[in-house]
Protein backbone atom coordinates (compact mmCIF):
# COMPACT_ATOMS: atom_id res chain seq x y z
CA UNK A 1 0.00 0.00 0.00
CA UNK A 2 1.53 3.28 -1.00
CA UNK A 3 -0.10 6.65 -1.54
CA UNK A 4 -3.76 7.37 -1.12
CA UNK A 5 -5.45 4.87 -3.44
CA UNK A 6 -7.92 5.61 -6.27
CA UNK A 7 -11.10 5.85 -4.17
CA UNK A 8 -9.67 8.34 -1.70
CA UNK A 9 -8.01 10.34 -4.48
CA UNK A 10 -11.30 10.64 -6.35
CA UNK A 11 -13.12 11.78 -3.22
CA UNK A 12 -10.37 14.32 -2.53
CA UNK A 13 -10.64 15.57 -6.11
CA UNK A 14 -14.36 16.24 -5.67
CA UNK A 15 -13.74 18.09 -2.42
CA UNK A 16 -11.00 20.16 -4.07
CA UNK A 17 -13.47 21.12 -6.80
CA UNK A 18 -15.93 22.29 -4.14
CA UNK A 19 -13.24 24.27 -2.30
CA UNK A 20 -12.01 25.97 -5.45
CA UNK A 21 -15.47 26.53 -6.99
CA UNK A 22 -16.19 29.93 -5.42
CA UNK A 23 -12.74 31.20 -6.39
CA UNK A 24 -12.97 29.96 -9.98
CA UNK A 25 -16.47 31.41 -10.36
CA UNK A 26 -15.30 34.78 -9.05
CA UNK A 27 -12.56 34.80 -11.68
CA UNK A 28 -15.02 34.07 -14.50
CA UNK A 29 -17.46 36.67 -13.23
CA UNK A 30 -14.83 39.39 -12.97
CA UNK A 31 -14.53 39.45 -16.76
CA UNK A 32 -18.29 39.50 -17.28
CA UNK A 33 -19.86 42.09 -19.59
CA UNK A 34 -23.24 41.86 -17.84
CA UNK A 35 -24.75 44.36 -15.44
CA UNK A 36 -25.61 41.75 -12.83
CA UNK A 37 -24.53 38.34 -11.63
CA UNK A 38 -25.37 35.95 -14.44
CA UNK A 39 -23.66 32.65 -14.89
CA UNK A 40 -22.27 31.91 -17.37
CA UNK A 41 -21.85 35.55 -18.39
CA UNK A 42 -23.38 36.49 -21.75
CA UNK A 43 -20.15 38.20 -22.78
CA UNK A 44 -16.69 39.03 -21.49
CA UNK A 45 -15.05 42.41 -20.97
CA UNK A 46 -12.74 44.35 -18.70
CA UNK A 47 -15.42 46.93 -17.89
CA UNK A 48 -15.67 45.96 -14.20
CA UNK A 49 -11.96 46.40 -13.71
CA UNK A 50 -12.28 49.87 -15.23
CA UNK A 51 -15.27 50.58 -13.01
CA UNK A 52 -13.20 49.49 -10.03
CA UNK A 53 -10.51 52.02 -10.92
CA UNK A 54 -13.08 54.81 -10.69
CA UNK A 55 -14.92 53.68 -7.58
CA UNK A 56 -13.91 56.24 -4.96
CA UNK A 57 -15.22 54.63 -1.75
CA UNK A 58 -13.66 51.24 -2.52
CA UNK A 59 -10.32 52.78 -3.46
CA UNK A 60 -10.32 54.96 -0.35
CA UNK A 61 -11.05 51.97 1.87
CA UNK A 62 -8.38 49.93 0.08
CA UNK A 63 -5.83 52.63 0.91
CA UNK A 64 -7.01 52.74 4.53
CA UNK A 65 -6.74 48.96 4.77
CA UNK A 66 -3.18 49.03 3.47
CA UNK A 67 -2.29 51.73 6.01
CA UNK A 68 -3.94 49.90 8.89
CA UNK A 69 -2.38 46.56 7.96
CA UNK A 70 1.09 48.08 7.66
CA UNK A 71 0.94 49.80 11.05
CA UNK A 72 -0.65 46.71 12.63
CA UNK A 73 2.14 44.49 11.28
CA UNK A 74 4.88 46.77 12.55
CA UNK A 75 3.34 47.25 15.99
CA UNK A 76 2.46 43.57 16.39
CA UNK A 77 6.04 42.53 15.68
CA UNK A 78 7.40 45.18 18.06
CA UNK A 79 5.11 44.02 20.85
CA UNK A 80 4.92 40.32 20.01
CA UNK A 81 8.48 39.32 19.14
CA UNK A 82 10.05 40.39 22.47
CA UNK A 83 7.27 38.54 24.28
CA UNK A 84 7.88 35.45 22.14
CA UNK A 85 11.58 35.71 22.93
CA UNK A 86 10.84 35.76 26.65
CA UNK A 87 8.37 32.87 26.44
CA UNK A 88 10.65 30.75 24.25
CA UNK A 89 13.95 31.38 25.99
CA UNK A 90 13.20 32.61 29.48
CA UNK A 91 13.45 30.54 32.63
CA UNK A 92 11.03 31.93 35.15
CA UNK A 93 8.17 30.81 37.27
CA UNK A 94 4.64 30.87 35.85
CA UNK A 95 5.83 30.72 32.23
CA UNK A 96 3.13 28.26 31.16
CA UNK A 97 0.41 30.34 32.78
CA UNK A 98 1.74 33.48 31.07
CA UNK A 99 1.83 31.71 27.70
CA UNK A 100 -1.83 30.81 28.23
CA UNK A 101 -2.61 34.42 29.12
CA UNK A 102 -1.02 35.75 25.93
CA UNK A 103 -2.69 33.21 23.67
CA UNK A 104 -6.14 33.52 25.28
CA UNK A 105 -7.33 36.20 22.81
CA UNK A 106 -7.02 33.59 20.04
CA UNK A 107 -9.76 31.57 21.76
CA UNK A 108 -12.41 34.29 21.88
CA UNK A 109 -14.38 34.73 18.65
CA UNK A 110 -13.82 38.11 16.98
CA UNK A 111 -17.57 38.66 17.34
CA UNK A 112 -17.11 38.97 21.12
CA UNK A 113 -13.83 40.92 20.86
CA UNK A 114 -15.41 43.31 18.35
CA UNK A 115 -18.35 44.03 20.63
CA UNK A 116 -16.07 44.53 23.64
CA UNK A 117 -13.91 46.94 21.63
CA UNK A 118 -16.99 48.85 20.47
CA UNK A 119 -18.05 49.35 24.09
CA UNK A 120 -14.51 50.37 25.05
CA UNK A 121 -13.74 52.65 22.08
CA UNK A 122 -17.02 54.57 21.81
CA UNK A 123 -16.58 56.71 24.96
CA UNK A 124 -12.93 57.23 23.99
CA UNK A 125 -13.95 58.36 20.47
CA UNK A 126 -11.63 55.77 18.95
CA UNK A 127 -14.21 54.13 16.70
CA UNK A 128 -13.71 54.76 13.00
CA UNK A 129 -10.19 56.08 13.55
CA UNK A 130 -6.86 54.72 12.38
CA UNK A 131 -5.56 54.14 15.95
CA UNK A 132 -8.82 52.43 16.89
CA UNK A 133 -8.70 50.09 13.90
CA UNK A 134 -5.02 49.37 14.50
CA UNK A 135 -5.57 48.53 18.17
CA UNK A 136 -8.61 46.44 17.25
CA UNK A 137 -6.75 44.38 14.68
CA UNK A 138 -3.83 43.94 17.05
CA UNK A 139 -6.06 41.92 19.39
CA UNK A 140 -5.87 39.28 16.65
CA UNK A 141 -2.33 39.78 15.34
CA UNK A 142 -0.37 40.19 18.60
CA UNK A 143 -1.38 36.77 19.99
CA UNK A 144 -0.80 35.33 16.52
CA UNK A 145 2.73 36.75 16.34
CA UNK A 146 3.47 35.56 19.88
CA UNK A 147 2.29 32.04 19.06
CA UNK A 148 4.07 31.76 15.74
CA UNK A 149 7.36 33.29 16.91
CA UNK A 150 7.44 31.37 20.22
CA UNK A 151 7.29 28.15 18.20
CA UNK A 152 9.81 29.42 15.65
CA UNK A 153 12.28 30.53 18.33
CA UNK A 154 11.85 27.39 20.41
CA UNK A 155 12.59 25.27 17.33
CA UNK A 156 15.95 26.85 16.57
CA UNK A 157 18.80 24.32 16.30
CA UNK A 158 19.60 22.78 19.64
CA UNK A 159 22.47 24.23 21.69
CA UNK A 160 23.31 26.88 19.10
CA UNK A 161 22.72 29.76 21.50
CA UNK A 162 24.59 27.98 24.27
CA UNK A 163 27.50 27.64 21.85
CA UNK A 164 27.52 31.40 21.25
CA UNK A 165 27.49 32.01 25.01
CA UNK A 166 30.46 29.69 25.64
CA UNK A 167 32.33 31.61 22.94
CA UNK A 168 31.94 34.80 24.92
CA UNK A 169 28.79 36.41 23.53
CA UNK A 170 26.69 38.25 26.12
CA UNK A 171 22.98 37.32 26.22
CA UNK A 172 22.01 40.33 24.08
CA UNK A 173 24.80 39.65 21.61
CA UNK A 174 23.51 36.06 21.35
CA UNK A 175 20.05 37.37 20.44
CA UNK A 176 21.48 39.80 17.89
CA UNK A 177 24.09 37.57 16.28
CA UNK A 178 22.45 34.15 16.47
CA UNK A 179 18.79 34.07 17.51
CA UNK A 180 17.40 36.82 15.29
CA UNK A 181 19.38 35.99 12.11
CA UNK A 182 18.29 32.37 12.39
CA UNK A 183 14.68 33.39 13.05
CA UNK A 184 14.62 35.91 10.19
CA UNK A 185 12.73 33.80 7.62
CA UNK A 186 10.09 32.95 10.22
CA UNK A 187 9.93 36.60 11.16
CA UNK A 188 9.29 37.72 7.58
CA UNK A 189 6.67 35.01 7.08
CA UNK A 190 5.05 36.09 10.33
CA UNK A 191 4.97 39.72 9.14
CA UNK A 192 3.33 38.68 5.84
CA UNK A 193 0.65 36.67 7.62
CA UNK A 194 0.00 39.46 10.13
CA UNK A 195 -0.52 41.84 7.23
CA UNK A 196 -3.00 39.42 5.63
CA UNK A 197 -4.83 38.85 8.93
CA UNK A 198 -5.26 42.58 9.44
CA UNK A 199 -6.11 43.28 5.81
CA UNK A 200 -8.83 40.59 5.78
CA UNK A 201 -10.16 41.26 9.28
CA UNK A 202 -13.88 41.87 8.84
CA UNK A 203 -15.92 41.34 11.99
CA UNK A 204 -13.93 43.56 14.37
CA UNK A 205 -13.73 46.20 11.65
CA UNK A 206 -17.50 46.07 11.13
CA UNK A 207 -18.01 46.82 14.82
CA UNK A 208 -15.58 49.72 15.03
CA UNK A 209 -15.67 51.17 11.50
CA UNK A 210 -17.87 54.12 10.65
CA UNK A 211 -18.66 56.32 7.67
CA UNK A 212 -15.53 58.33 8.47
CA UNK A 213 -13.21 55.38 8.19
CA UNK A 214 -14.01 51.91 6.92
CA UNK A 215 -11.64 49.24 5.76
CA UNK A 216 -11.92 47.41 2.46
CA UNK A 217 -13.74 44.28 3.77
CA UNK A 218 -16.28 46.53 5.51
CA UNK A 219 -16.87 48.53 2.33
CA UNK A 220 -17.20 45.25 0.40
CA UNK A 221 -19.79 43.90 2.85
CA UNK A 222 -21.79 47.12 2.49
CA UNK A 223 -21.57 46.92 -1.29
CA UNK A 224 -22.65 43.26 -1.46
CA UNK A 225 -25.54 43.96 0.93
CA UNK A 226 -26.84 46.67 -1.37
CA UNK A 227 -26.12 45.43 -4.89
CA UNK A 228 -25.10 42.31 -6.74
CA UNK A 229 -23.00 43.22 -9.73
CA UNK A 230 -19.62 41.84 -10.88
CA UNK A 231 -17.67 44.84 -9.53
CA UNK A 232 -16.85 42.93 -6.34
CA UNK A 233 -15.72 39.98 -8.47
CA UNK A 234 -13.18 42.20 -10.22
CA UNK A 235 -11.96 43.47 -6.85
CA UNK A 236 -11.87 39.91 -5.53
CA UNK A 237 -9.63 38.82 -8.39
CA UNK A 238 -7.17 41.56 -7.50
CA UNK A 239 -7.28 40.57 -3.83
CA UNK A 240 -6.93 36.83 -4.52
CA UNK A 241 -3.89 37.40 -6.74
CA UNK A 242 -2.30 39.66 -4.13
CA UNK A 243 -3.02 37.05 -1.44
CA UNK A 244 -1.55 34.27 -3.57
CA UNK A 245 1.64 36.25 -4.05
CA UNK A 246 1.98 36.65 -0.29
CA UNK A 247 1.16 32.98 0.32
CA UNK A 248 3.72 31.81 -2.22
CA UNK A 249 6.28 34.17 -0.74
CA UNK A 250 5.67 32.77 2.74
CA UNK A 251 5.78 29.19 1.50
CA UNK A 252 9.04 29.84 -0.33
CA UNK A 253 10.58 31.76 2.53
CA UNK A 254 9.89 29.40 5.36
CA UNK A 255 10.12 26.37 3.10
CA UNK A 256 13.37 27.35 1.41
CA UNK A 257 14.81 28.67 4.64
CA UNK A 258 14.05 25.40 6.38
CA UNK A 259 16.00 23.55 3.74
CA UNK A 260 18.81 26.11 3.99
CA UNK A 261 18.90 26.22 7.78
CA UNK A 262 20.10 22.66 8.33
Amino acid at each position, binding site marked *: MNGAGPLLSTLAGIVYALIL*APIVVVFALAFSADNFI*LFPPSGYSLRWFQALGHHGPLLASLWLSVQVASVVTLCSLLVGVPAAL*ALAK*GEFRGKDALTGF*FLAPLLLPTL*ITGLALLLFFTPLRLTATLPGLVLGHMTVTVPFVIRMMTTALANLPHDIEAAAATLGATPWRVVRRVTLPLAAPGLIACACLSFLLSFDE*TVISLFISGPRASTLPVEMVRY*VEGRTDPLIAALSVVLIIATLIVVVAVERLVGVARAVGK
Partner: protein
Amino acid sequence: MSATRRLPWLLLPAGLFVLGIYAWPTLLLLRNAFNEVGPTGAMVEAMSLKTATETFADGFTFELTWNSLWLSATATTIALALSYPLSLFLFRTTSRWRGILAVIAILPMLISGVVRVFGWLAILGDRGLVNGLLQSLGLISAPLKLVFNWTGVTIGLAESIMPYMILALLAGFGQLDRTLEEASRSLGASPARTFLRVTLPLSLPAIVLAAGLGFVLSMSAYITPKLLGGGRVFVLATEIFEQATTNTNWPVAAVLALYTLALLLVLLALSNLLARRLRR
Protein backbone atom coordinates in the same frame (compact mmCIF):
# COMPACT_ATOMS: atom_id res chain seq x y z
CA MET B 1 21.15 32.04 34.04
CA SER B 2 20.60 35.53 35.27
CA ALA B 3 20.07 36.81 31.73
CA THR B 4 17.24 34.37 31.02
CA ARG B 5 15.71 35.39 34.35
CA ARG B 6 15.67 39.02 33.24
CA LEU B 7 13.78 38.15 30.05
CA PRO B 8 10.28 38.53 31.59
CA TRP B 9 10.68 42.30 31.15
CA LEU B 10 10.24 41.69 27.44
CA LEU B 11 6.69 40.57 28.20
CA LEU B 12 5.76 43.99 29.51
CA PRO B 13 4.57 45.66 26.26
CA ALA B 14 2.55 42.62 25.22
CA GLY B 15 1.23 42.25 28.75
CA LEU B 16 0.07 45.86 28.90
CA PHE B 17 -1.52 45.48 25.47
CA VAL B 18 -3.44 42.32 26.33
CA LEU B 19 -4.58 43.79 29.66
CA GLY B 20 -5.55 47.19 28.25
CA ILE B 21 -6.98 46.39 24.83
CA TYR B 22 -8.24 42.92 25.49
CA ALA B 23 -8.90 42.05 29.13
CA TRP B 24 -10.27 45.46 30.13
CA PRO B 25 -12.76 45.73 27.22
CA THR B 26 -13.89 42.17 27.95
CA LEU B 27 -14.55 43.20 31.56
CA LEU B 28 -16.45 46.23 30.26
CA LEU B 29 -18.56 43.85 28.20
CA LEU B 30 -19.31 41.89 31.35
CA ARG B 31 -20.19 45.11 33.19
CA ASN B 32 -22.54 46.24 30.41
CA ALA B 33 -24.59 43.08 30.76
CA PHE B 34 -25.77 44.39 34.14
CA ASN B 35 -26.88 47.76 32.77
CA GLU B 36 -30.49 48.44 31.88
CA VAL B 37 -32.26 50.03 28.94
CA GLY B 38 -34.66 52.81 29.74
CA PRO B 39 -38.07 53.31 28.10
CA THR B 40 -36.54 55.75 25.58
CA GLY B 41 -34.01 53.15 24.51
CA ALA B 42 -31.17 54.96 26.24
CA MET B 43 -28.78 52.95 28.38
CA VAL B 44 -29.14 53.31 32.15
CA GLU B 45 -26.18 52.56 34.42
CA ALA B 46 -27.31 49.86 36.80
CA MET B 47 -26.21 46.74 38.56
CA SER B 48 -29.13 44.44 37.99
CA LEU B 49 -30.10 41.27 36.18
CA LYS B 50 -33.10 43.01 34.62
CA THR B 51 -31.71 42.95 31.07
CA ALA B 52 -30.61 39.35 31.41
CA THR B 53 -33.94 38.10 32.77
CA GLU B 54 -35.86 39.99 30.09
CA THR B 55 -33.63 38.66 27.35
CA PHE B 56 -33.96 35.07 28.50
CA ALA B 57 -37.72 35.44 29.03
CA ASP B 58 -38.02 36.43 25.38
CA GLY B 59 -38.96 33.49 23.18
CA PHE B 60 -36.85 34.93 20.38
CA THR B 61 -33.65 34.21 22.35
CA PHE B 62 -34.61 30.55 22.51
CA GLU B 63 -35.35 30.55 18.80
CA LEU B 64 -31.97 32.17 18.03
CA THR B 65 -30.20 29.57 20.18
CA TRP B 66 -31.96 26.74 18.42
CA ASN B 67 -31.19 28.29 15.01
CA SER B 68 -27.51 28.73 15.87
CA LEU B 69 -27.15 25.20 17.21
CA TRP B 70 -28.98 23.60 14.29
CA LEU B 71 -27.10 25.62 11.69
CA SER B 72 -23.75 24.83 13.32
CA ALA B 73 -24.59 21.14 13.60
CA THR B 74 -25.56 20.78 9.93
CA ALA B 75 -22.66 22.91 8.65
CA THR B 76 -20.18 20.98 10.83
CA THR B 77 -21.55 17.63 9.68
CA ILE B 78 -21.25 18.58 6.00
CA ALA B 79 -17.80 20.07 6.51
CA LEU B 80 -16.62 16.99 8.39
CA ALA B 81 -17.93 14.64 5.70
CA LEU B 82 -15.90 16.59 3.13
CA SER B 83 -12.82 17.36 5.23
CA TYR B 84 -12.21 13.82 6.46
CA PRO B 85 -11.52 12.18 3.07
CA LEU B 86 -9.49 15.20 1.97
CA SER B 87 -7.38 15.15 5.14
CA LEU B 88 -6.86 11.39 4.90
CA PHE B 89 -5.82 11.88 1.28
CA LEU B 90 -3.32 14.58 2.27
CA PHE B 91 -2.03 12.44 5.12
CA ARG B 92 -1.45 9.45 2.87
CA THR B 93 -0.46 10.85 -0.47
CA THR B 94 3.13 10.40 -1.49
CA SER B 95 2.72 12.84 -4.39
CA ARG B 96 5.45 15.40 -4.77
CA TRP B 97 2.65 17.99 -4.99
CA ARG B 98 1.62 17.19 -1.43
CA GLY B 99 2.83 20.55 -0.08
CA ILE B 100 0.97 22.53 -2.71
CA LEU B 101 -2.15 20.37 -2.31
CA ALA B 102 -2.09 21.08 1.42
CA VAL B 103 -1.77 24.82 0.81
CA ILE B 104 -4.73 24.72 -1.62
CA ALA B 105 -6.81 22.86 0.95
CA ILE B 106 -6.36 25.61 3.52
CA LEU B 107 -6.30 28.44 0.99
CA PRO B 108 -9.88 29.63 1.72
CA MET B 109 -8.68 30.44 5.24
CA LEU B 110 -6.26 32.99 3.79
CA ILE B 111 -8.69 34.54 1.31
CA SER B 112 -11.08 37.18 2.53
CA GLY B 113 -14.40 35.77 3.71
CA VAL B 114 -16.31 38.42 1.77
CA VAL B 115 -14.71 37.25 -1.47
CA ARG B 116 -15.72 33.66 -0.85
CA VAL B 117 -19.27 34.63 0.11
CA PHE B 118 -19.47 36.55 -3.14
CA GLY B 119 -18.34 33.42 -4.98
CA TRP B 120 -21.17 31.44 -3.40
CA LEU B 121 -23.66 34.13 -4.40
CA ALA B 122 -22.50 33.65 -7.98
CA ILE B 123 -22.80 29.86 -7.74
CA LEU B 124 -26.06 29.58 -5.83
CA GLY B 125 -27.91 32.75 -6.89
CA ASP B 126 -31.11 32.75 -8.97
CA ARG B 127 -29.08 33.24 -12.12
CA GLY B 128 -25.95 31.61 -10.80
CA LEU B 129 -23.94 28.60 -11.90
CA VAL B 130 -26.17 25.87 -10.45
CA ASN B 131 -29.51 27.30 -11.54
CA GLY B 132 -28.16 28.23 -14.95
CA LEU B 133 -26.85 24.71 -15.47
CA LEU B 134 -30.05 23.01 -14.31
CA GLN B 135 -32.24 25.29 -16.41
CA SER B 136 -30.19 24.87 -19.56
CA LEU B 137 -30.47 21.11 -19.06
CA GLY B 138 -34.21 21.58 -18.76
CA LEU B 139 -34.32 19.93 -15.35
CA ILE B 140 -36.10 22.84 -13.69
CA SER B 141 -38.32 25.58 -15.02
CA ALA B 142 -38.06 28.11 -12.17
CA PRO B 143 -34.77 28.77 -10.35
CA LEU B 144 -34.19 26.91 -7.08
CA LYS B 145 -33.95 29.11 -4.00
CA LEU B 146 -30.40 28.38 -2.88
CA VAL B 147 -29.29 31.65 -1.31
CA PHE B 148 -30.75 34.19 1.11
CA ASN B 149 -32.05 31.24 3.11
CA TRP B 150 -30.76 28.49 5.42
CA THR B 151 -29.49 26.35 2.51
CA GLY B 152 -27.11 29.03 1.29
CA VAL B 153 -25.87 29.88 4.78
CA THR B 154 -25.27 26.21 5.59
CA ILE B 155 -23.26 25.65 2.40
CA GLY B 156 -21.20 28.82 2.80
CA LEU B 157 -20.54 28.13 6.47
CA ALA B 158 -19.49 24.54 5.81
CA GLU B 159 -16.96 25.75 3.27
CA SER B 160 -15.59 28.49 5.53
CA ILE B 161 -14.88 26.15 8.46
CA MET B 162 -13.35 23.36 6.35
CA PRO B 163 -9.74 24.67 6.30
CA TYR B 164 -9.68 24.81 10.11
CA MET B 165 -11.12 21.33 10.38
CA ILE B 166 -8.63 19.99 7.82
CA LEU B 167 -5.76 21.40 9.88
CA ALA B 168 -7.21 19.91 13.07
CA LEU B 169 -7.67 16.52 11.41
CA LEU B 170 -4.16 16.50 9.95
CA ALA B 171 -2.72 17.36 13.37
CA GLY B 172 -4.76 14.57 14.96
CA PHE B 173 -3.76 12.00 12.33
CA GLY B 174 -0.26 12.10 13.81
CA GLN B 175 -1.09 8.99 15.81
CA LEU B 176 -2.27 7.08 12.75
CA ASP B 177 0.61 4.74 12.08
CA ARG B 178 0.75 3.37 8.56
CA THR B 179 2.23 0.10 9.76
CA LEU B 180 -0.89 -0.55 11.86
CA GLU B 181 -2.99 -0.56 8.70
CA GLU B 182 -0.44 -2.78 6.99
CA ALA B 183 -0.54 -5.13 9.97
CA SER B 184 -4.33 -5.26 9.68
CA ARG B 185 -4.09 -6.07 5.96
CA SER B 186 -1.49 -8.77 6.57
CA LEU B 187 -3.83 -10.35 9.13
CA GLY B 188 -6.43 -10.76 6.40
CA ALA B 189 -8.65 -7.67 6.75
CA SER B 190 -9.95 -6.09 3.53
CA PRO B 191 -9.27 -2.37 2.91
CA ALA B 192 -12.82 -1.57 3.98
CA ARG B 193 -12.56 -3.65 7.15
CA THR B 194 -9.16 -2.12 7.87
CA PHE B 195 -10.68 1.34 7.61
CA LEU B 196 -13.54 0.41 9.95
CA ARG B 197 -11.48 -1.52 12.49
CA VAL B 198 -8.20 0.42 12.52
CA THR B 199 -8.19 3.78 10.72
CA LEU B 200 -11.53 5.14 11.87
CA PRO B 201 -11.20 4.22 15.57
CA LEU B 202 -7.70 5.68 15.69
CA SER B 203 -8.79 8.94 14.09
CA LEU B 204 -11.88 9.32 16.26
CA PRO B 205 -10.25 11.76 18.74
CA ALA B 206 -9.14 13.94 15.81
CA ILE B 207 -12.66 13.85 14.39
CA VAL B 208 -14.16 14.93 17.71
CA LEU B 209 -11.70 17.81 18.10
CA ALA B 210 -12.19 18.97 14.52
CA ALA B 211 -15.96 18.80 14.88
CA GLY B 212 -15.81 20.77 18.13
CA LEU B 213 -13.70 23.43 16.45
CA GLY B 214 -15.99 23.61 13.41
CA PHE B 215 -19.04 23.90 15.63
CA VAL B 216 -17.57 26.73 17.68
CA LEU B 217 -16.47 28.61 14.55
CA SER B 218 -19.96 28.19 13.01
CA MET B 219 -21.64 29.46 16.17
CA SER B 220 -19.62 32.65 16.16
CA ALA B 221 -19.59 33.26 12.39
CA TYR B 222 -21.22 36.51 11.38
CA ILE B 223 -20.33 37.38 7.77
CA THR B 224 -21.68 34.22 6.16
CA PRO B 225 -25.11 34.15 7.88
CA LYS B 226 -25.43 37.90 7.30
CA LEU B 227 -24.57 37.99 3.59
CA LEU B 228 -25.77 34.57 2.40
CA GLY B 229 -28.83 34.80 4.66
CA GLY B 230 -29.88 38.06 3.08
CA GLY B 231 -31.62 39.24 6.27
CA ARG B 232 -33.81 36.15 6.46
CA VAL B 233 -31.54 34.07 8.63
CA PHE B 234 -31.48 34.92 12.31
CA VAL B 235 -28.82 33.44 14.58
CA LEU B 236 -27.18 34.59 17.82
CA ALA B 237 -24.25 36.18 15.95
CA THR B 238 -26.43 38.33 13.66
CA GLU B 239 -28.61 39.37 16.59
CA ILE B 240 -25.62 40.42 18.70
CA PHE B 241 -24.36 42.61 15.86
CA GLU B 242 -27.79 44.13 15.19
CA GLN B 243 -28.35 44.92 18.87
CA ALA B 244 -24.90 46.45 19.23
CA THR B 245 -24.87 48.60 16.10
CA THR B 246 -28.29 49.18 14.52
CA ASN B 247 -30.22 49.25 17.84
CA THR B 248 -27.27 50.48 19.96
CA ASN B 249 -28.75 48.31 22.70
CA TRP B 250 -25.48 47.45 24.39
CA PRO B 251 -26.82 45.71 27.49
CA VAL B 252 -28.79 43.21 25.43
CA ALA B 253 -25.85 42.74 23.05
CA ALA B 254 -23.58 42.13 26.03
CA VAL B 255 -25.98 39.61 27.59
CA LEU B 256 -26.30 37.72 24.30
CA ALA B 257 -22.54 37.82 23.70
CA LEU B 258 -21.77 36.40 27.14
CA TYR B 259 -24.50 33.81 26.69
CA THR B 260 -23.01 32.76 23.32
CA LEU B 261 -19.54 32.67 24.85
CA ALA B 262 -20.80 30.42 27.65
CA LEU B 263 -22.36 28.07 25.10
CA LEU B 264 -19.08 27.98 23.14
CA LEU B 265 -17.00 27.22 26.22
CA VAL B 266 -19.33 24.40 27.26
CA LEU B 267 -19.20 22.93 23.75
CA LEU B 268 -15.40 23.19 23.59
CA ALA B 269 -15.03 21.60 27.02
CA LEU B 270 -17.33 18.76 25.99
CA SER B 271 -15.47 18.01 22.77
CA ASN B 272 -12.09 18.13 24.54
CA LEU B 273 -13.40 15.84 27.26
CA LEU B 274 -14.77 13.41 24.69
CA ALA B 275 -11.54 13.46 22.68
CA ARG B 276 -9.50 12.73 25.80
CA ARG B 277 -11.83 9.85 26.72
CA LEU B 278 -11.49 8.39 23.23
CA ARG B 279 -7.73 8.69 23.23
CA ARG B 280 -7.39 6.41 26.25
